[in-house]
């Protein structure tokens, strides 16, 4: 099963591409450090979301050419970025007023575990590692939509979608949608609701890799990724 799964599952870029399809024109969006940052590369042509970085920029753009970096112009991952027309700078209290005040339409983060009640664990393994939380706890409590990008299972094959998180929580009841390497799953009223799955995968096989019951509400669409791996 695991070898099959490796060939079947979406790459991180394909997951990012799928998540980008749901970002509306004009949405205010915060992308977490690392893998979620890739979502920006797959912005749907004709849409112009405004990306927020919590260190204090709205409407930043991609990285500059090597050698063109300005180290006062960075994102939350401390990578050099550029500005788009209409960008704005602001201080940290204003930046998190945007977050806590519910002004962000979408926050997209990574995950260690997501529970069927919407709890998210993504900041600490709880195993004596040095804790580092950043803005994750602020973002998950207050953005209008909180989406997670993740492999469906851990490297050991354990489910990442679970009944209850066993790792330290980032937020309670906060996740609204999961883009996994096998499926798109919503959290609705304390349940996982399967919206899309890879066509090559049966419902039963997907359920077997999921740590809590997958509910179906209407039709389950095929999870189809087009043009992935080719950043626009």
């Amino acid at each position, binding site marked *: 099963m695991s070898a099959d799964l490796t060939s079947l599952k979406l790459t991180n870029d394909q997951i990012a591409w799928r998540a980008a399809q749901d970002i509306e024109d004009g949405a205010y969006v915060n992308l977490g450090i690392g893998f979620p940052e890739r979502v920006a590369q797959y912005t749907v042509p004709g849409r112009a979301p405004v990306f927020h970085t919590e260190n*204090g920029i709205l409407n930043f753009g991609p990285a500059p050419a090597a050698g063109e970096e300005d180290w006062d112009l*960075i994102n939350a991952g401390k990578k050099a970025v550029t500005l788009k027309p209409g960008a704005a700078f602001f201080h940290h209290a204003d930046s998190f007023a945007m977050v806590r005040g519910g002004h962000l339409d979408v926050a997209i983060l990574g995950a260690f575990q997501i529970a069927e009640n919407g709890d998210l664990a993504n900041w600490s393994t709880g195993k004596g590692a040095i804790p580092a*939380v950043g*803005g994750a706890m602020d973002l998950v409590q*207050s953005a209008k939509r909180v989406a997670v990008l993740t492999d469906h299972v851990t490297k050991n094959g354990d489910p990442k979608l679970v009944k209850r998180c066993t790792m330290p929580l980032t937020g309670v009841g906060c996740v609204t949608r999961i883009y996994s390497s096998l499926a798109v799953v919503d959290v609705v009223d304390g349940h996982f609701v399967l919206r899309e799955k890879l066509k090559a995968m049966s419902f039963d096989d997907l359920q077997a890799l999921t740590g809590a019951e997958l509910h179906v509400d209407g039709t389950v669409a095929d999870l189809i990724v087009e043009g992935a791996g080719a950043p626009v």
Partner: protein
Amino acid sequence: MDKTVPSLADAIAPIGDGAVVMIAGFGGSGAPVELIHALIDKGPKNLTVINNNAGNGHVGIAAMIEQGMVSKIVCSFPRSSDPVAFNTAFTAGTLELEVVPQGTLAERIRAAGAGIPAFYTATSYGTELAEGKPVEEFDGKHYVRERWLRADFALIKADTADTMGNLTYRMAGRNFNPIMAMAADCTIVQATRIVEPGGIPPEQVVTPGIFTDRIVEIAAPVQEETLIREGAVYP
């Protein structure tokens, strides 16, 4: 009124052992590296440092930790690309860590500057970072009570200052600078240029001079990120 001082050593002179020091910047962006290095030259001990991070490489806050000046750090994200100084001291048990969610850190600082001793936020509700803190329900949602965060000193990096202490900032280097400038008893500023009163159009002032105390001109400040990439070690 003239808040300028002639040298970095003069600027940081009031900071002594046991002080609580806010250091602005996010990573290297907006970090007052010259003020930090002047503080290392003076060498006060047992400092509490408040910053978003916990230093990188062997310059800035990381160098303060390596010099044994820091007994406690309050930050949101001690992990970074090269946090060896922090990791070594933390693992050895010589450095106390208080991890605060980033927005809560910013608002605790802003609240201190605004004279608000506590506030409620949904951030961290139900997590281990809320343990021991009062929780209250407002309009059907749970919020955690957080205290203000004050400091004895703030180290600030401005772009332009006037001699009365009005400040502007460069790009995203603004980050924690304006709020930390409000939250300390003594706010110490390095500015890339110092102009006469009126030299900054009033509409463009970001930090009004009432929040600042001591200003030193550092005409060509180094970028911490550049130092780290060069493998620089301070002192």
